[in-house]
């Protein structure tokens, strides 16, 4: 219970901090959304009128206060300046796709990282180990968009196995559309995890308690599960951190694969200076990241009773 209270105390300032930063940050970019909406024929009078209508003529402090009140009192995270749609609806319609992408990417990452790390740790020092250590190195040096373009060329255009982009509505969609982008992300996310997990496994495999377990003639899989649980802790933390970075960073992958997700919406709303949408997305992303962090901590505590006792 105390843990829950403590976690909440940590969470609130983070969300507030992100939201405040984004609010002011988006407004330092030159460009008047009203002028952009009205386009080429905008006269100063019509721009001023639109400012009033959209509430952009109020002092910054008031705008911030109004928005915060809206969020906490009514759960209303704003209305798009450009399309007058409620931001919540906009974000919700895009959230599913990005969430699917992130989840699938995490799945692929785990499927890639765990076996590779196991392979390397159990054959430490051999050529297999060296190979597993070198490949992630190359993976980290390749920009994600580059990998994505190559995968599209091979699997989409030439082999026609998978869609090259967009999110389809046929049989097996949108899962099929997300396979290549998720795999691209996984290729970028797994190298540090392979490294971390391999290191931890090596440490743990050497540890006294493992020797003891083996000497007690416990079946190999039970020893493995003990080993994995102990080794997993720092890697799970690292995974949680990477997922947090990923959530805000799907933008590039969504562009390469023409996916209509939150990242794409974020980029377009910054380009059109649609402040409420940018703020709304930042708020949602911050909340999700915070939730992911909490879940990661909980998972770590589950795996390692020593942390729970602390």
């Amino acid at each position, binding site marked *: 219970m105390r843990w829950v209270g403590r976690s909440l105390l940590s969470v609130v300032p983070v969300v507030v901090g992100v939201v405040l930063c984004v609010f002011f940050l988006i407004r330092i970019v*030159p460009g008047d959304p009203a002028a952009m909406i009205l386009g080429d024929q905008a006269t100063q009078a019509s721009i001023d009128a639109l400012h009033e209508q959209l509430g952009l003529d109020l002092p910054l402090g008031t705008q911030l206060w109004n928005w915060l009140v809206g969020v906490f009192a009514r759960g209303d995270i704003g209305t798009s300046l450009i399309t007058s749609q409620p931001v919540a609806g906009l974000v919700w319609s895009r959230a599913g796709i990005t969430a699917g992408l992130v989840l699938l990417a995490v799945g692929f990452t785990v499927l890639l990282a765990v076996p590779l790390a196991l392979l390397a740790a159990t054959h430490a020092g051999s050529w297999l180990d060296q190979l597993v250590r070198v490949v992630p190195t190359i993976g*980290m*040096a390749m920009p994600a968009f*580059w990998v994505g373009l190559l995968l599209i060329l091979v699997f989409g255009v030439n082999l026609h196995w998978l869609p090259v982009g967009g999110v389809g509505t046929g049989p097996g969609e949108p899962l099929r559309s997300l396979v290549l982008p998720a795999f691209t992300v996984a290729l970028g996310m797994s190298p540090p995890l392979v490294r971390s997990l391999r290191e931890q496994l090596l440490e743990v495999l050497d540890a006294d308690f493992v020797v003891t377990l083996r000497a007690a003639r416990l079946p190999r899989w039970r020893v493995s599960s003990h080993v994995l649980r102990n080794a997993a802790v720092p890697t799970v933390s690292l995974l949680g951190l990477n997922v947090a970075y990923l959530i805000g*960073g799907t933008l590039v992958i969504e562009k390469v694969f023409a996916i209509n997700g939150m990242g794409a919406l*974020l980029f377009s709303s910054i380009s059109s200076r649609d402040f409420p949408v940018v703020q709304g997305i930042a708020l949602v*992303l911050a909340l999700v990241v915070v939730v992911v962090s909490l879940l990661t901590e909980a998972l770590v505590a589950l795996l390692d009773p020593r942390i729970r006792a602390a």
Partner: protein
Amino acid sequence: MTGTATRTVPRPGVRWLRRALRNPTLIAGAVIMLVVLALAVFSPTPYDPFAQDLDHGLDPPSPAHWFGTDQLGRDILSRVVAATGTDLRIAVLAAVVPFVVGVAVGLVSGYAGGWLDWIVGRVVDTFVAFPFYVLVIVVVFAAGTGERGIYVAYALVGWISYARVIRAKTRSLCRQGWVEAAYGGGLSHTRVVGRHLLPNVLPQAVVLLMTEILLIMVAVVTLGYLGLGVQPPTPDWGTMISDGQLFLTTKWWVSTLPGLAVVTTGVGLSLLGDGLADVWRLR
């Protein structure tokens, strides 16, 4: 004659060097990075990287132009070499401020503990939750495309990685007791942190630095792809890849060869970092 057998124990520096020379990862990484550095500093370009020849645009690789020419007839090999200097310089410069700030924050936060540590922890969490590309895009839109945006953006968020790692390392060092002993023995906080803790966390920080330079380099390339990169006509790998994207299948050399340069440099940095970590017994 005393008969004492004088077996010389090699000094720590020499021991380190021997270990280093025996480590294949470090050797490989160092060799690659030395070549890259040489290219960056001396820039041995066969042609002027800015010299245009509109009648010979998009020529495939040939004896005259080993890497072919780009859209404006410029020699791609020369531009790739010139871009080495540009991109490496940007990545290293952008990595400096975060390195200094991050290590300092990590040290102080880990050493001090308590509410200061808690606040720093929350600030770090905030930055982690902050969508990085929002920051970069906003900064680039506001400050204009080009190097400035990258330096500012990284100075603002790049320090977190160091802070987290160094803080954890500092705390684990502090738990070892000798830190308390030093302070109890009359050394000031500054001396403890500066003369005793800092040298012990520095290896970890330097290894992380290699990774961070790599990440910044990849980010610069990605920004070039998004159209927010270095100003033309300065050669830059990311912009070169982006420019050649549209004819990737017909004129492959325009995008592919700069891409290979990125990967090679990245691999070099990565191996160097791994090798150093090996030698410093960090893994």
